[in-house]
């Protein structure tokens, strides 16, 4: 049961352009969403999060958008930099459980110089 889905396994963009990573979810009980960045053989690094009471959260070059009616969120990176190349995971949690995170499958972002 894939409650969180990232349908694009990979994305390639040019340095300086916008990267848009997408994530869909099925569980309407999710009320908190996070994006993590991960390099091989390292732990996930927290990037940005958004509560379900908001539809946008911005932190520097990173912006997360939440569309609750579509059960869709996206991460925008502007401008993209080669150091952004990594695997990006979206994750979700609900207030009704212990806060465990349900992860998507990840999207590999490659930013070309």
């Amino acid at each position, binding site marked *: 049961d894939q409650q969180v889905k990232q349908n694009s396994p990979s994305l390639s963009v040019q340095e300086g352009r916008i990267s848009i990573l997408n994530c869909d979810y099925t569980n309407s009980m999710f009320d908190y969403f996070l994006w993590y960045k991960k390099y091989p053989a390292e732990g996930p690094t*927290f990037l940005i999060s958004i509560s379900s009471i908001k539809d946008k959260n911005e932190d520097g070059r990173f912006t997360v958008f939440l569309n609750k009616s579509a059960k869709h969120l996206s991460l925008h990176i502007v401008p993209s930099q080669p150091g952004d190349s990594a695997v990006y995971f979206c994750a979700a949690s609900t207030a009704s459980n*212990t*806060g465990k995170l349900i992860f998507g499958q*990840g999207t590999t972002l490659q930013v070309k110089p």
Partner: protein
Amino acid sequence: EPEVTQTPSHQVTQMGQEVILRCVPISNHLYFYWYRQILGQKVEFLVSFYNNEISEKSEIFDDQFSVERPDGSNFTLKIRSTKLEDSAMYFCAHGGRLWGTDTQYFGPGTRLTVL
């Protein structure tokens, strides 16, 4: 950002052997999680541990797995009799709602290789 360290960074073991993976938070936390990631797959929740008790566990977390906080600082995940399919990266995380934030912070992971 709060930090968590994990030891060892890489563990190689024979099938059927017991392994203990350790997580050491930098400061005093009450709420911990273990996750794993099989190569090429997504990160999966294993267990949450609050105030020295398991608060939730997934179907993966069967009788072969156990967690404890033996000395009030280290937080351990034990696999009693490892199987080939236990080969994965294992991540400890802390944070979560009872800590006052919904964000979980992950350690660098332990790569477990079962031969």
